[in-house]
């Protein structure tokens, strides 16, 4: 497939691995965080860690919008679904995420009308086709997905489809990165930056990571060669004592990003003062809600929701995985009490979660001895 297959060439991967090896300075270790769940998926699926020298370590970050949704928000969505005449529409990723009282799938089995959609527009189409039902779309995702929700809302508003509303759980990428760096308990040298978020926000928003925290960040594509090339670029900066934002994914990402997309986001949504992130606690100005002029399409205005903060199960260590403090196999319940079939936490249930990725792809390879926490 064009623009995909070319970036999976094994010969070039070997060459890149060699170049990365040559960059390793004697006695120096390089700890890079790949922010986005899609990169974690690529790394494990293609066994990229085996292409990296021991001195280079990759830790996983919080860029999985399903993984960071707290259990209480899942319960809120289920309480909406249980109202009479409601159809809850969500992406497939959400259907098995465990809340405090079960998942959307459990709610469906108990009689709630829950439907999986591919696009927010499909949820709107559902509302158009079922005028006697209220369709509530559970919106998740970073800035990658928020513009699509925004356009859907504008369409609903323009054509006055009053039986459509959005339960908004969009989050933004920079605040959690800052939160991880501010917590200062994981010694990260540099970042493999998210690729598709950056098609919307561009590269400019990452500048504080470089200027305020002195960490290089390379915006990366998702194919194996993209990730390896990005690792190379970060290491090259580190060796030269540079801390800059670079763009490896130039075929899709521009410095300025998609200004139409950011404009529709701004038109329809605003930042919440606070939002609870699973594993990271409450982060200010890190999540989006609908603006007041869209109140009649805002599920949080239309429905009474419990809004209860549900603590993660005691055994769950998702928070530490999302912050890069531990690797999946270091979680005490990984593969035992917590499996994709019976997930305790979101890192295992989301297909982009680090634990699911490792369980499905990396489990059999001997894990390289690591210590993610600050030594």
């Amino acid at each position, binding site marked *: *497939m064009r623009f995909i297959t070319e970036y999976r060439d094994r*010969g*070039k991967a070997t060459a890149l691995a*060699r170049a990365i090896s040559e960059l390793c300075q004697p006695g120096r270790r390089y700890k890079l965080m790949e922010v986005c769940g899609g990169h974690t998926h690529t790394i494990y699926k293609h066994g990229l860690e085996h292409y990296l020298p021991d001195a280079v370590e990759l830790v996983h970050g919080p860029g999985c919008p399903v993984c960071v949704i707290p259990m209480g928000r899942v319960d809120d969505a289920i309480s909406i679904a249980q109202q009479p005449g409601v159809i809850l529409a969500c992406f497939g990723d959400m259907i098995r995420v465990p809340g405090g009282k079960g998942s959307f799938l459990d709610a469906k089995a108990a009689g709630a009308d829950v439907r999986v959609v591919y696009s927010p*527009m499909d949820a709107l189409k559902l509302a158009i086709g079922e005028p006697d039902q209220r369709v509530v779309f559970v919106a998740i995702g970073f800035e*990658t997905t928020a513009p*699509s929700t925004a356009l859907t809302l504008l369409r609903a508003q323009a054509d006055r489809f009053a039986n459509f509303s959005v339960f908004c759980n969009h989050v933004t990428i920079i605040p959690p990165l800052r939160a991880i760096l501010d917590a200062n308990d994981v010694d990260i040298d540099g970042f493999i930056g998210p690729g598709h978020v950056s098609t919307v926000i561009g590269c400019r928003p990452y500048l504080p990571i470089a200027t305020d925290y002195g960490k290089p960040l390379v915006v990366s594509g998702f194919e194996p060669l993209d990730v390896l090339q990005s690792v190379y670029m970060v290491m090259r900066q580190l060796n030269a004592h540079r801390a800059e934002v670079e763009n490896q994914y130039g075929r*899709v990402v521009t410095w300025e990003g998609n200004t139409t997309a950011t404009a529709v986001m701004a038109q329809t949504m605003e930042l919440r003062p606070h939002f609870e992130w699973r594993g990271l606690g409450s982060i200010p100005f890190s999540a989006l809600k609908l603006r007041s002029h869209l109140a009649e399409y805002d599920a949080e205005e239309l429905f009474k929701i419990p809004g209860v903060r549900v603590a993660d199960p005691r055994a769950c260590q998702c928070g530490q995985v999302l912050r890069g403090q531990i690797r999946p196999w270091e979680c005490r319940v990984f593969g035992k009490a917590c499996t994709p079939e019976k997930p305790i936490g979101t890192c295992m249930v989301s297909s*982009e979660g680090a634990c699911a990725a490792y369980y499905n792809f990396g489990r059999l390879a001997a894990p390289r001895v690591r210590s993610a926490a600050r030594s």
Partner: protein
Amino acid sequence: MCLGIPGLITELDNADDQYAWVDVSGAKRRVNIALLSEDVPRAGDWVLIHVGFALARIDEEEARTTLRMLEGMANAYTDELEVMAQSAAQGERQTDDSSASTASGASSSPGRL
């Protein structure tokens, strides 16, 4: 968040200028292109699709640049492998020569390497 795939625009939707038909390896879907209103794509352009919306144009020139860089690294590596292989082969030949001359009683001359 992350699932964005390249698709080829085959035609714009006559009925709704916010939409175009996109082909991914033979599977076709109507995709919303309103986010690309600053630089409206045309049939034959490649776009990145996410949840039924086009988020960005794929810049073919940039794609070629990235690939050229990767090829450059790969070629440098292959060249080096060739050089190593050649010098290994040379080393073997010289070992053969010197063992042949040793067998015949003549001394080897390391300086010839």
